[in-house]
């Protein structure tokens, strides 16, 4: 009798739990699937409503319009270029500094570490940072995308922790053979750090791809330096019907969209897909690494 009750309880719990988790997963994935369906549906038809998971009148017109907008086209390449430069500079400089801070004999080890770690916990604020960029004459330049992001303190700690696990004898024997610290870093440390650096590269790339605030704050007057996320933001601002307080206003993207038998709503869906697809492509690679990445981050001295 007792076991029967337990079995019944077990079945009820497992069923309810499964149903709940399926609903939850559906809630996570539905908005994107719906956006995909809208982006592949005829723009005028979408306005009638009732598009859920599947396009009613299939059409590639929205994507055709998006890829024919010069603004989106340049923005796509700026986003890609910015991501590549940030990943390259960030990984190189962060791991170079991490190597020097992993050397126990280095006399400036402690003060440099403290100065970098403190920056994780405070920020001068929006206006002073803006004034600095302005005074350095970096407003409206490509440089402003990567230069302020060359080192991240958190990744610095992660890489340093990893370098410290590399056997000292490897470094010593290279030094006996006459290699200097820079050569040790380039030829021994970098190759051994590839798994960690790959993980960090993916996270840095996602962060860079997803960022829009730097474009908005520093480069909003330069159309040729606009990024995909910023173009999406402008479109979002102009299609939110109640968005009276927004700064975006009507913009060329939405207008040129309307003249091609599409609607701002459909164009927005198409740009959302264009902005999300690179993330969804790297996602399988990311998820292979992120759990280990998170646990490395937890190891801190």
């Amino acid at each position: 009798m007792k076991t029967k009750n337990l079995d019944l309880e077990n079945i009820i719990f497992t069923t309810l739990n499964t149903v709940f988790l399926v609903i939850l997963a559906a809630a996570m994935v539905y908005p994107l699937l719906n956006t995909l369906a809208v982006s592949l549906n005829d723009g005028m038809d979408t306005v009638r409503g009732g598009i859920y998971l599947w396009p009613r009148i299939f059409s590639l017109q929205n994507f055709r319009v998006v890829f024919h907008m010069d603004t989106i086209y340049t923005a796509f390449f700026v986003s890609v270029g910015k991501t590549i430069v940030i990943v390259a500079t960030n990984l190189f400089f962060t791991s170079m500094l991490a190597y020097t801070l992993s050397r126990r004999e280095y006399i400036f080890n402690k003060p440099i570490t403290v100065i970098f770690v403190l920056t994780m916990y405070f920020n001068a604020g929006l206006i002073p940072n803006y004034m600095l960029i302005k005074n350095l004459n970096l407003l409206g330049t490509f440089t402003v995308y990567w230069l302020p992001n060359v080192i991240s303190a958190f990744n610095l700690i992660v890489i340093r922790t990893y370098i410290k696990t590399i056997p000292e004898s490897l470094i010593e024997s290279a030094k006996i053979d006459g290699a200097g610290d820079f050569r040790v870093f380039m030829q021994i440390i970098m190759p051994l750090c590839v798994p960690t650096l790959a993980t960090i590269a993916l996270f840095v790339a996602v962060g860079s791809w997803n960022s829009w605030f730097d474009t908005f704050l520093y480069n909003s007057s330069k159309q040729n330096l606009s990024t995909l996320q910023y173009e999406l933001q402008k479109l979002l601002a102009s299609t939110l019907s109640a968005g009276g307080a927004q700064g975006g206003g009507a913009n060329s993207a939405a207008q040129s969209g309307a003249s091609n038998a599409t609607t701002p709503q459909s164009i927005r869906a198409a740009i959302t897909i264009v902005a999300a697809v690179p993330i969804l492509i790297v996602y399988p690679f990311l998820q292979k690494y992120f759990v280990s990445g998170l646990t490395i981050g937890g190891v801190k001295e």
Partner: protein
Amino acid sequence: MGSGAATNTRKRSFWSVVSGQRELILMSVPLLLYKVLFSYVPIGGWTMAFQNFKPAIRTWYKQQWVGFDNFVKLFTGLNGERFIRDIGNTLAQSLLTLVLGYVCSIVLALLLNEVKNIGFKRVVQNITYMPHFLSWIIVAGLVSTALSVPTSGGIINTVLMGLHIIDTPILFLANPGYFWGIVAGSHLWKELGWNTIIYMAAITAIDPALYEASDMDGANRYQKMWNITLPCIKSTIVILLIMSIGNVLEAGFEIQYFLGNGLIVEKSETIDIFVLRYGIQMGNFSLATVAGMFKTVISILLITGANFISGKLGEEKLI
């Protein structure tokens, strides 16, 4: 004489160490100067708080110095009403987000832990982690669509009307009463799955012998959750909670900035948006700097406090 010689050797040895480590120095000191320029020099901009700052005046010390006038202005009159309201909004939104996010991610981790089918578990995990990687712009767009009227793809209204809970669509983004919930809900959607990772890792580390022993004693599922799993992950829960104290003035930015509008501004505007509107859009750099300073100083106090509590509780110190 003797002490002079000793100082000399120490000096010489310091410089010989420096010259022996010149490569390390060349590899790190330029990056240190870089960091000082981009993270510490801007703190000098806090002097704007004590000036009536005009960007047209290029020489810093020729600005008009006004003492604490801007601090008084920030907390009195119309500015003061607006700023204090924004502090309230920031705190309310971030606490709601925090509490909802905590409870839900712990519950989800417990539920996932009960799933015996590894394949199903992995699929659910991977789907729920995914929104974490989408940008806030995309999320804001998806949220605004989901909350709109049914003909614009407003799935929430569609479901509520389908279940006959409401007869006419709710205009979520035109009614201030819903906004805090919308902020917390958006964060929940984006980060729920991601936040379970750390709890799942903690649960995996629990000794299976504890569960076996309780099976012998005839404990049921809920008794095991309550008396074994939760106590075993308690220290993870506590340390994460303490760490988030320092971020309590970070309520997020994008959801409030994109979805906030004239109708609901009384509930949507946060400190960050106040700084952006006064500083970048209205050109009142001084007042915006004071507001930003206020936020940074409070955050540092909170982090120091959290660090202290963390040390008292015998947990790892954060700094």
